[in-house]
Each structure stands twice: as C-alpha cells, then as structure tokens.
C-alpha cells in the first residue's frame, strides 16, 4: 500500500512539474513581442516649448528663431554644422580614389543631374537658409533651419526656389513654440519628394507614408507600431544611422533591420540560415511603390520641345508627368517587383569630371559592389533607374547643365531651352571644360529598397526564388540555387538512364509475356 502511494506521488509530481515547465516555455516572450511592447511606448516630451519665455515674442525672420533655439541649445549648432544634412557632403573612402569628400556637391544622379549651379532651387531641401549659387554662407550658425526638422505643427514649409527660406506667410512664432522630436512629417517633406516629386527617386519613400497603412509599411502603420523615421535611423548628436548609396560609399553607420530584429529572427533554422546571404529586405519587401508610381526612366534627350513657344506637359491616367518640356520623357511604374543584386555595403560613384572610358555600355552612376563569392555580400532588392542624360563627346564627361535661374538669357535650360548654353554655363560653374559636342548617354542608378516592408503573409515564399521559371533571382547567375539550377549534362544523362531503364524493363517484360504465351500454345498442342 505504501509503495503504491509513493508511486502515485512520484507520477503526480512528474506530471505537475512537466506542466509547469511546458507552460513557462509557452509564455516566454519572443523578441518580436518585446519589440512590440517597447515600441508601443510613446515617450512624452521633457520640456514644453510653448512655456519658454524666449519663444513668446514675434519672430520676423527664420534666423531669429534659430538664435532663440541656440540661446538654450548652445552647442547643438556645432553638431548640425558637422552633419551631411548641412554640408551636403561627407568624407568617404572609395576604392581606387582614396578619401573623397562625397556628396551632392560632386556626385551626379540621373534625375535632375546635380545641385551645382541650381542651388537656389535645390536649397528647398537644405537644412539651412540662403543657399544660392553665389552666396554660400555655411559657416553662419544662424542659417541653420531648426524648424524644418523639429516643427511639430506640420505647417512649416520651405518656399520654392528661395534658397531654403520658408514660406513668408508662416506663423514662425507658433511653430517655434511647438517644436519637438522629428517626426515622419519632418523627414518626409524632403525625403519623400527627392527627384522633384512624390516617390520619384527612391520608390520606397512615398507621401502615403505620412499616414501609412499596414499594407504600405508594417512599421509605420498608424494603427499599429506607428514608428517614426528616427526609430530605425537612430540619431545621436544630429548624426543619424542610414546610408543612401547614391551618395555613400562605405559600409558603416547603416541603419539595419538587425538593430531590432537580430540576424536570426525566424523560428525556422533554415530561414535564419538564409540571412547569411540574403538581406531581410529581399523577402520582406516583395514590391515597392505600393501607393503611388515611381519614376523608372528619364529621357533628357527629348527635353526642350515647345508648343507655340511655350513649355508644356503631358500626363498619364494616374496624373504622372510623361513629358515635361523642362525635363524630357518619363516612364513610371507602380507595385514594382525589385531587381536583385549582391551588395557588400560599398559603392563606387561617377563624380563630376570623370571621363567615361567605355561609352558603349550604360554608365553606372553608383556601382554597388558585391558578388556571391564576397563574404560580406548579401542579396538586396534595388530599384534600377535608367536615364539618357547629357554627355560631352569631346571630354567623355557627363554634363552638369545649368537648369535653374530666375532670369532668361543666363543659359539656364529651364528658361532658355538651349542644351549647348545650359551645358556651357553649367560646366563653367563647376570649373570643368565643355567641348561643345553634346550628345546623350545611357546611365543607370541603383536605389536599394529598404522601406515599404510587407506583412509576413505577403513576404516572398520559397518558390518565388526556388523555381525553374520566373525565379525572382533569375538574374543572379553566379551561384547554385536548389530548384532554380541544374547541370544540363547531368539532367539529360539522368533522364536518359531512367528512360532507357523503363524501355529496357518494358521490352524485357513484353518479350517474357510473348514467349510464355507461345509456350502455353505449344503445351496445348
């Protein structure tokens, strides 16, 4: 009796302890649960700027606001003036060139081509005031535009073609009293409109993300995590993580998914193993330009046509410009499947004044480095933007044309519509020669796709890549991938062996049946 009692107790103990163990395993929160919890905490400001005495006055110029800011934040201007947002350039190491001060000042893109000579227009997206071709006072801290990044009223806006000055109808006092941490609205006013319009350049940065739906981006979903840009682009001393490879060359200070999600976020080991060679974005951003179209092609060579002596525009059914006299012909696309390339975080750039050696191939404005055999490379999704842009046949250089000017007759293409004078004036501004032999050359740019992250249900599935036909990775031929790849000799040989075996056994079997039939007949006789 004692024995039975003892056994029952032991069994009961085992059952209870195993239940407790299993239960505790189930309730252990995953990394994702922890992230959801921490990210849902909205922090409140530690100071209410509307109560500050220094902000109670009426501000007549934006510089006065900056002075007021700096009266408390006495050292912040130094950080800003070291930043690439202020300098439009940054020290970079480029293979084969050494240390280069790389930025909008010496890089070229295949959208509006370049900043030089067009500062007054481009200054709309500078964190300062008074940017123009002639005056470029970037040593004066009063010219820092604090409000463009810190306005929390969502009313601040820079004026067009005013060298970075705000719209003069704004209530600067009201804005100054309602400043705080940068929100999507602050970053978006410039970064969603790069290239001269909504979603033109990146393809994954769209005005729809001011108030993002879950379908557009899971992280910025206003009814979900509602993350602001700085949640990932972590900022310290006015220096933020994140690199755009139109202007960056080095694999450092990048903003990554792994910052929060780690390099092994999946439950399945086999998926975690993919992260060695495949970037998160590759599977989790199956399409970009989900809300509005993005520009895929820009043909500058058709620019300059006039109707009755006036520039004109043509639009498609979605309202995208397909032709602008000032800019040329465009192709747009929506819900675009990205292209895929190997990328190790380093890039090479075409810089102003480089002579193009091989003019038969398209010029890679920003060549992203990487290959299968490179241990640091991963497969990433990119938007590839193609263009035809002005090129000097004599010097082999891409041309930085003068596009913008307030006045006619100064050579600006957008006023005078003359390529030769625009090229001559533009190249003069950057102290480079122009031979007079102007033509157009194909250029391509790579834009890594990092935003518009889809829900896990909409992420790529195995067969989107692991398939013989229409594999997403059909273009990456430098490695073997199961299901996509095979060796034609082994495939033909193997199939032949199987067919021959089938035929051989079938023939043998038929012969056996035939002969046994004959024998039966003979026996019957």
């Amino acid at each position, binding site marked *: 009796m004692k024995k039975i009692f003892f056994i029952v107790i032991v069994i009961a103990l085992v059952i209870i302890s195993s239940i407790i163990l299993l239960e505790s395993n189930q309730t252990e929160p995953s990394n994702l649960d922890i992230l959801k919890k921490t990210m849902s905490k909205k922090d409140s400001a530690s100071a209410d700027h509307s109560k500050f005495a220094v902000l109670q006055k009426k501000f007549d110029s934006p510089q006065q606001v900056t002075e007021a800011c700096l009266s408390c934040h006495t050292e912040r201007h130094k950080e800003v003036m070291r930043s690439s947002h202020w300098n439009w350039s940054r020290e970079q190491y480029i293979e084969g060139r050494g240390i280069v001060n790389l930025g909008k000042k010496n890089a070229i893109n295949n959208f509006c081509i370049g900043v030089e000579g067009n500062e007054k227009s481009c200054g709309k997206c500078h964190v300062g005031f008074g940017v123009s071709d002639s005056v470029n006072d970037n040593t004066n801290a009063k010219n820092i535009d604090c409000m463009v990044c810190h306005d929390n009223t969502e009313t601040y806006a820079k004026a067009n073609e005013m060298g970075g000055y705000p719209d003069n109808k704004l209530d600067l006092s009201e804005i100054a009293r309602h400043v705080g941490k940068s929100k999507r609205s602050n970053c978006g006013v410039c970064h969603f409109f790069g290239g001269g319009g909504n979603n033109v350049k990146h393809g994954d940065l769209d005005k729809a993300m001011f108030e993002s739906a879950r379908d557009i981006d899971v992280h910025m979903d206003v009814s979900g995590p509602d993350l602001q840009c700085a949640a990932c682009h972590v900022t310290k001393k006015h220096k933020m993580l994140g690199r755009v490879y139109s202007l960056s060359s080095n694999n450092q200070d990048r903003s990554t998914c792994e910052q929060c999600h780690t390099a092994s976020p999946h439950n399945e080991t086999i998926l975690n193993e993919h992260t060695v060679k495949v970037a998160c974005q590759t599977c989790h951003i199956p399409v970009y330009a989900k809300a509005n179209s993005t520009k895929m092609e820009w043909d500058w060579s058709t620019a300059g046509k006039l109707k009755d002596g006036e520039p004109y525009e043509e639009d498609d059914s979605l309202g995208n410009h397909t032709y602008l006299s000032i800019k040329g012909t465009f192709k747009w696309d929506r819900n675009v499947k990205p292209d895929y390339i190997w990328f190790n975080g380093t890039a090479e750039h075409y810089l102003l004044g480089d002579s193009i050696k091989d003019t038969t191939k398209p010029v890679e404005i920003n060549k992203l480095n990487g290959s299968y055999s490179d241990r640091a490379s991963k497969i990433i999704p990119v938007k590839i933007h193609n263009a035809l842009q002005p090129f000097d046949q004599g010097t082999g250089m891409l041309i930085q044309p003068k596009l913008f000017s307030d006045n006619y007759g100064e050579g600006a293409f957008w006023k005078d519509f003359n390529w030769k004078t625009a090229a001559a004036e533009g190249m003069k501004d950057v102290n480079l020669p122009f031979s007079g032999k102007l033509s157009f050359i194909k250029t391509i740019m790579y834009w890594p796709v990092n935003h518009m992250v889809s829900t896990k249900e909409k992420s790529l599935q195995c067969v989107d890549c692991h398939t013989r036909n229409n594999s997403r990775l059909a273009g990456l031929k430098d490695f073997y991938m*199961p299901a996509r790849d*095979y060796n034609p000799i082994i495939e033909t040989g*193997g199939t032949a062996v199987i067919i021959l075996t089938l035929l051989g056994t079938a023939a043998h*079997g038929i012969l056996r049946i035939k002969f046994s039939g004959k024998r039966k007949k003979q026996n019957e006789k």
Partner: protein
Amino acid sequence: MKNKIYIYRAFERFWHWTQAFLIFILMLTGFEIHGTFKFFGFQNAVSYHKTAAYAFIVLIVFAIFWHLTTGEWRQYLPTTEHIRAQMNYYIFGIFRNEPHPTKKTVLTKLNPLQKLVYLGLKVLVIPIMVLSGLMYMFYRYPQQNKIETLNLESLEPVALLHTIGAFMLVAFVIAHVYLITTGSTVTSNLKAMIIGYEDVEQDGEESAEETKLNQQTK
C-alpha cells in the same frame, strides 16, 4: 520437389519496406526540391525530405548493426562464379522458361548479379547520397569574421553529386521493381519479402547446415 524456406527474417523485411517507403518519399520530395515538379510545396518538400533523411540514417545504423551481428553482410561479397550464366539467363534463358542458374538458399539469397548491384548500392550510391545529403544540410557559407563548420565556397558540387545519385537510385528502383517479377512465379519474390517464406525448388537433400538454420529461424 518444392520446399518452403524462411528466407527473409522479420528485421530484414521491416528494414526493406521501411527503406522502400523512405526512398520513395526522398525521391518525391527530392525531385521537387530539384525543381522537376511541384507537389508538396517547396517548404514542405524540404522539411519532409529532411525528416525522411534522418529516419533513413537511423535505419541504416540499425541495418549495419544487423548485418554485422548476423553475418548477413557476407551475402554481398561479390563473386564471378555463375555471373555469365546469370546474365545469359536474363537475356535468353528466361524466355525459354529455363530454371534459374543459381539456387536461392538462406545462405545465398542473392544471385551473382544481385550481389554486385546491391554491393554497389551499399558501398557507393547510398554512402554518396548520405554524405552529400549531410553536406547539403550542414554546409555553411563562409561568413565574415566567423568560423563555421563545413565551410563550403559553393553548394554546386554537393548538389550535383546528390542529383547524380538520385537519378541512379530512380533507375535502380525501376529495374528492381521489374526484376522482382522474375522469380519462380511473378509474385513469389514479392510474397517472400512480405511474409518471409518462399517456395524454393529443391533438387536434392537440404544440407545439414541449412536444415539447422531453417529450424533455428523458424
């Protein structure tokens, strides 16, 4: 005179049919992973293939143990004796209803051709499949600043080897399924592998050893 002998023991039959089932699953899922067709869905195919592969390895371990402890491994020792006669039988004799040139006994279950083919399977094809399969599963791409086991620069040679083996196995299975119909009757071999007993033509006295063995196994 016909004699019923116990030719395939319980473990052997269990081993055979489990192996048959696993190879069938591995073939089906393997060729899906290879991209030949779609059936289970890629992710399922990979997971089933992996599970079946582990089960197969466990089975192989038991089978090796069984072969060694029972001495059954000797069945596969190759011989050139009667090999020509056996080939002639399959090419000519079988159509003339000639008797099998080699007798099936408990001690020599396999004819000389079978010995060769099964030995090839056991020491060449299966080991290649298991080894290349394990490398397929456990290869790691070389990683920056990290030491990983089984660093392979490329999956390609492993995958191609595994594919070659897979084609050979498919061909084997086809030939095997056909050849089991060439016993004393069309179904006698199949029946033997299911129930263990087979009617074997006896044209003489059973050797004392065989009788003893038969009695033991019964």
